[in-house]
């Protein structure tokens, strides 16, 4: 029965997490349970990945149970090429968190379990209301994790992320209601199923408002400039596990949600505001990248770095061609793995040396060569070096952006430069130069830690050399998606095409 595989992946972690809260279990037991559940999810997701065909650009492993018939709300799940890789990121990376960090409270692990289930639910939901429910559920554990287990300024950070997120959620809820009503007005029926909603194309000023509502909600989560200001505080104050969840996976669900819910329904909005949003991505990328350079706190630097890369990933959505969109979907996993490993390794530094101040570190590479090697591979993937997963996505996004808009493309390309500036300078001060008292005694990764991270390091390189097995599962959906958007928005495609062709026009005059 492959139909319920998604439900299992959603509800086993959530129910285990809730159960853990109720029973009096110790830290170690909680960690063990979390680990076992996360490994089960990994195994299920691998089974799902290999049996996913992707050829038809439709939902696979679909499951649908009507919930509220009168409003057309249903419990409907499914995976297609758009959600596959996001789902894989949400499903496969968690065991590392359980394996690497031991001394946490029971509630910490319980929240991790709940957030994982909810995120998988949000990615698989094909009903907009169901998505909203999972979306809200996945946010709560993050508040708790930052609020209970965070750093010294955790309360301010929690307050900020709460204000931001609630504002976003309310806007989204209003927009979802509007979409439901609009669908009812057009067809006389109630439905929140994406398969139905995608059939209509909304236009007019109310639709624009709803579009903006949706975009703000997701722009906060991604985050898109200028809605990113919660991120440095939240990432920095959050315990490593929560930072990992936020940066590696939850940000990608924001990206995913734009592609899944906003692009199909608001073709007009995307056509009108796509360029503006792409500029938001570019400005965010440069702004956060330049800011990362000035950070003294290692974690804050990585937070800005992550935000900078999310800008690039977002640009791929707005270019609306298959290359850029595929690049974005690929980069979702590439960035999840690279940034995830970076935050986890930083967590290890923080645990062992009790400092995150870059100036306090130095010479780590001599004391911990394996640690340094892993960090370097993840860093190089993050800056998009060919041979790592990071290159494929970034290249496809830049290539697609050239077709969309040359200015956007050139500015997007500067990520190649912006990224290495802060990364190399950090690498110099943390891993090279001379040892000091703090780093003198730094222990290299233990065997278990090495074996925990090694699969992801191998995956980063594998995905750089053999991306096609992944890409062939997502391109049909991406093609379908862009083709439908282009059909819905008509003229915008020709506009985009012209930008490259302008050059050829000029030459004919020469």
């Amino acid at each position: 029965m492959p139909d319920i595989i998604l439900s299992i992946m959603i509800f086993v972690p959530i129910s285990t997490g809730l159960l853990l809260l109720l029973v009096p279990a110790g830290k170690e037991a909680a960690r063990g349970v979390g680990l076992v559940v996360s490994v089960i999810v990994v195994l299920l997701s691998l089974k799902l990945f290999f049996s996913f065909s992707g050829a038809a650009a439709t939902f696979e492993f679909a499951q649908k149970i009507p919930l509220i018939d009168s409003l057309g709300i249903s419990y409907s799940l499914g995976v297609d090429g758009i959600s596959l890789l996001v789902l894989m990121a949400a499903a496969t990376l968690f065991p590392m968190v359980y394996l690497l960090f031991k001394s946490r409270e029971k509630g910490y692990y319980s929240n991790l379990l709940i957030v994982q289930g909810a995120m998988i639910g949000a990615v698989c939901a094909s009903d907009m209301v169901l998505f909203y429910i999972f979306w809200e559920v996945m946010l709560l554990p993050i508040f708790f994790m930052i609020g209970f287990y965070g750093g010294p300024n955790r309360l301010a950070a929690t307050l900020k992320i709460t204000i931001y997120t609630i504002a976003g959620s309310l806007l989204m809820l209003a927009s979802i209601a509007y979409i439901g009503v609009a669908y009812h007005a057009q067809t006389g029926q109630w439905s929140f199923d994406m398969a139905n909603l995608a059939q209509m194309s909304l236009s007019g000023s109310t639709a624009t408002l709803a579009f903006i509502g949706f975009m703000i909600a997701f722009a906060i989560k991604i985050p898109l400039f200028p809605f990113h200001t919660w991120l440095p505080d939240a990432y920095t104050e959050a315990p490593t596990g929560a930072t990992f969840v936020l940066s590696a996976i939850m940000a990608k669900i924001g990206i995913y949600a734009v592609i899944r819910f906003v692009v199909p329904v608001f073709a007009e909005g995307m056509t009108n505001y796509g360029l503006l949003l792409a500029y938001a991505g570019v400005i965010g990328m440069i702004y956060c990248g330049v800011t990362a350079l000035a950070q003294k706190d290692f974690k804050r630097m990585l937070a800005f770095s992550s935000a900078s890369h999310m800008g690039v990933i977002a640009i791929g959505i707005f270019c609306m061609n298959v290359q850029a969109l595929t690049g974005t979907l690929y980069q979702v996993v590439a960035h999840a793995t690279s940034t995830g490993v970076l935050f986890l390794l930083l967590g290890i530094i923080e645990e062992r040396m009790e400092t995150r101040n870059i100036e306090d570190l130095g010479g780590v590479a001599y004391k911990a060569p394996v640690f340094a090697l892993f960090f370097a591979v993840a860093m190089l993937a993050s800056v998009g070096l060919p041979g790592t997963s990071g290159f494929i996505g970034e290249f496809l996004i830049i290539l697609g952006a050239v077709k969309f808009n040359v200015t956007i493309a050139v500015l997007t390309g500067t990520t190649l430069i912006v990224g290495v500036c802060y990364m190399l300078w950090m690498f110099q001060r943390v891993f090279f130069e001379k040892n000091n008292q703090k780093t003198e005694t730094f222990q290299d990764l233990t065997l278990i830690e090495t074996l925990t991270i090694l699969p992801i390091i191998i995956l980063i390189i594998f995905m750089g050399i053999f991306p096609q097995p992944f890409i062939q599962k997502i391109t049909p959906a991406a093609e379908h998606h862009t083709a439908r958007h282009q059909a819905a928005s008509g003229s915008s495609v020709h506009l985009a095409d012209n930008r490259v062709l302008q050059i050829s026009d000029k030459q004919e005059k020469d």
Partner: protein
Amino acid sequence: MEQTATYLVYIPLLPLIGALVVGILHLATCRTNRLPEKLYGILGCIGPVLSFILALRVFFTLKGLAAEERVLTQELFTWFSVGELDVSMGFLADPLSSLMLIFVTLIGSLIHIYSIGYMAEDRNFGKFFAYMNLFLGSMLILVLGAGPVVMFVGWEGVGLCSYLLISYYSEDRDNVIAGNKAFIVNRIGDLGFVLGMSFLFWGIGADGFDFLSLKANAHNLTPALGITVCLLLFVGATGKSAQIPLYVWLPDAMAGPTPVSALIHAATMVTAGVYMVARFSFIYAHAPVAGAVVAWTGILTALLAAVFAMYQRDIKKILAYSTVSQLGYMFAGVGVAAYSAGIFHVFTHAFFKALLFLGAGSVIYALHHQQDIWKMGGLKEKMPITYKTMLIGALALAGCPPFSGFFSKDEILYSALATGHYGIWLVGVGVAAMTAYYTFRMIFVVFHGQPRDREAFNHAHEPSKVMTIPLIILAVGALFAGFLNLPGIFGGDLEVSHWLAPSLVEHHPHTSWFVELLAIIISIGAFALGFRAAYRKFGAGADEPSYTGFKQFGYRKFYVDEIYHYLIVAPYQLTGKAISYFIEPYITDGPVKLTSWLYKMAGAAFKLVQVGYVRVYAIYMVIGLSIMSLLLAQSLNL
């Protein structure tokens, strides 16, 4: 027309496997028991040597085919395919790449062997060989890549290795900064490369994004797009091959171990830009405007770097600027569409410059890491093999007939003249004289005259055979490589140019033999002039000059580094600080802060009335009731 050759993949793969094996061994043992260095040395050299043998096999296989059929390909798998874009992981060996293959693997192998001696006392011996193997593998991917994207893999891979090896002595901050600089400056170039590739793809890439398909479809590329692509790709070349305005990283790159300078920053990697332009000759040949930009950038870089080289006192810096300058010549060659002349200079330069660097390495090694030429002197007797081989290298670099550099440089200058680029030719001749001057300034100061540091001199001695034999082999190359491409006037038939012809789109210009002869005489004159000036000043040993006036200006490289720092680096850092300490907290985050502030204020305002005494609330109630009654009365018109 093309044949498949299933062994092509092994050419880059063998050094890569070597890197993996040596790297893992080093990683597993570096903290506890170190493995014998010989083991690393042997493991490190196996890959390059086997690749060299395979490179020879490629060459002879191609030679056995008819000229226009000299193409070997191998497609491994579809790398990624999205919409119209279809990139396969494949390799292409044609006359152009086979020439590159041979000298890259030969010089690579020799420098690996030399390193066994040079790096003998290094505690990270294994790491060094892992990086060197990784470099060679990347370089071979660059050379063999069947399409621009695969080429870019090697392109960035060599950049990474360059960074790792420049920062090799990473405890010293300056070395790491030099490595960072190399990586970042190269990345600026790579942006051009990526954008150039993207434009090229949207122009003509839909029917296959590999060199053969692109070449077949090149006629569909509109001239304006062609120029755009050429200029963007050339931005990439200025980064990798250290041309104006991105040359600044190369002299600093001398912070790496000397064998690295010889292999990466002289013989192979830095010539990748020239190779790339030649590889894209099917586009550049139709974009003479872009070609002119390339040629002028090249020759002006040659001039500027030659000026700097005349005033440097660090032996490696002299050679580094000399490399920048020679790379400028190569771009002048490919810029005037004399692609084979440019590539031939890449070829000969690889021998004599690697030789000079390794020779300099022997000197530095013998003098315990002394690099200042004004602390050397009189080493001719102490180090006869190094002296003689370096002399051959110097004669080749300075363009003395019949050494290899003379023929290859002359071919470029002649091509410039014959295609009507008189300005480029004139500057080129001037630079030739300067080249002879700075080269022999170095030779005379280091090897002739009296020792300036008696203590170091007494300890100096010729290095072991593992270091001198590569020097001798390279000297043979530096001496004779030029004969491979003799022009008709010397009784040759431009064999290398003919060999390369099927890979390139170029037309050999024809002029009268009188012009050709005149050009040669003027070139020889330039050499003689420069040599004579150097001999008169330094031939009998000279005292360290005082660096004042223009000398100081030249020694400080016209303060270009400082200008870049104050115009680009410092403002960039300042922007980062400004955003993180001012713009982010007070402007971008302003609305959020304002919201929470308003909430607080509203709360405080309400707090004033919520005092908690029943009597006060009773008054509120009375006031409220009164107002309500009044309103009620009003609305009822009472």
